[in-house]
């Protein structure tokens, strides 16, 4: 079986063709222009993941929210659940880039970290 993908590893968006066996094993990957593309094709056909970005509320700062991201990829199926969980998170200023905002979100083993500073008001 063949699967056509658009690589999301970087903004180039290469078209990738993956050949899969009947049991879903990846037999070949073509069309990618870098190693990240090959890794993406494997992951997308076996265990698709995405990185998550959102904001969380912050108190005592000049701004009401601070942006965050997942420190690593999250299983695609858990993306919305993680985003919903982040709506109820509040942190206190000061926040630095890289500060862990939520440890091991929803048991994924992935931390949510701040991607901007939040200075104390």
């Amino acid at each position: 079986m063949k699967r056509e993908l658009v690589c999301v590893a970087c903004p180039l968006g290469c078209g990738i063709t993956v050949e899969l066996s009947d049991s879903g094993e990846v037999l070949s990957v073509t069309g990618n222009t870098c190693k990240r593309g090959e890794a993406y094709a494997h992951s997308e056909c076996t265990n698709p993941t995405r990185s998550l970005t959102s904001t969380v509320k912050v108190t005592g700062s000049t701004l009401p929210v601070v942006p965050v991201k997942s420190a690593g990829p999250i299983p695609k199926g858990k993306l919305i659940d993680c985003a919903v969980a982040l709506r109820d998170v509040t942190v206190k200023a000061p926040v630095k880039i890289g500060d862990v905002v939520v440890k091991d979100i929803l048991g994924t083993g992935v931390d949510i970290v701040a991607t901007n500073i939040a200075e104390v008001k």
Partner: protein
Amino acid sequence: MQNYDLVVIGGGPAGMAAALKAAECGVESIVVLERAETLGGILEQCIHTGFGLHYFGEELSGPEYASRFIELFKDTNIDIKLDTMVINVEPDEGKNIITAVSKAEGLVDYCAKAVILAMGCRERPRGALNIAGTRPAGIMTAGTAQKYVNIDGYMPGKKVVILGSGDIGLIMARRMTFEGAEVKVVCELMPYSSGLQRNIVQCLEDFNIPLRLSCTVIKIHGKDHLEGVTIANVDENRRPIMETAEYIECDTLLLSVGLIPENELSRSAGLQIDNITSGPIVNQDRETEFRGIFACGNVLHVHDLVDYVTGESQIAGAGAAKYIKGLADNDPEYINTKGINGVRYIVPQRINLNGDEDVKLYFRVGQVYRKANVKVTCGDVVISNKKKPKLAPGEMENVVIKQEQYKDFDRNSEIVIEIVEG
């Protein structure tokens, strides 16, 4: 009057990279004038990742990408004036006058040997679209919604229709979904999306948000607040096909219908604006037709990737440094670049054949091509002819012309880039 060697207008990614590069090249007195309260420009509200893969070799969010540059300013003596709005540029070779206003200093004139224009771009608003119907609240550009959600921390609505498939619109479709909104449809007038393929996959397909191509909003409904829109497919002349009209209930309409370089200052300074890019005409140093006035980033032409903005702005910064130090070529011999057969525009628009470095020409195509050749010629000389698997309007392409090639080009010719199909 305050005197500087270099005044940089705008402290977004373009202005930051240009100022830092000029400092690195030995320019000692530089000021960056920025109208917002922080450096970073639009990156501050672009909290998604995808920035920096080319430049830093890692995937960063907008604020992270900006902070890498903001940090570098601490080791320089570049002056930064925030909350400062430039209202006029009076070109006068070697002693240009830049007028700015700020709460802190009032009205100030700056005199500068060189100026770098790095004002970025602006979103095309509803007024530019002529959509019929009422004028209720709830209609805004995708970037405005992005600021509301990511900086101000509140959601503008719950049921969303997006008109235009530019990247900001696609990114906001996912962002609003994460915050609990229902994004009903993204309508794109053209038969293709102007956004990056990866954003169609990871912002729409991942969440089963439909993308309707050749489709537009033909009517707005609602008195005080938006209640719904009527959408319809369009024919090949972009005229709505009334039989396909469909009412969609929504409280928010986001517009992601293109970006326009913000060139009011350039125009009033008398700079010639390229009709296609909507930015000034520049040479390979990103110097405009006025000596010592440079332009870079989205004010020059709208880029897909901030990494390219950084690269281009470093070229402008180095060019300004060369000019300030008196090392610029005083007797340039220019030929123009020209896009034909599917190539909509090329930047730079002209090349000084006495240049001492290879030149990268950036261009954009007007439609989607598969397996087409990019042919570059100068007179009868074929400079290159490379096969490309895919070319799309949303993705900027480039070709390199080596210095040893262009130095001998006919002074009366032009460099032509074209797409050859089949």
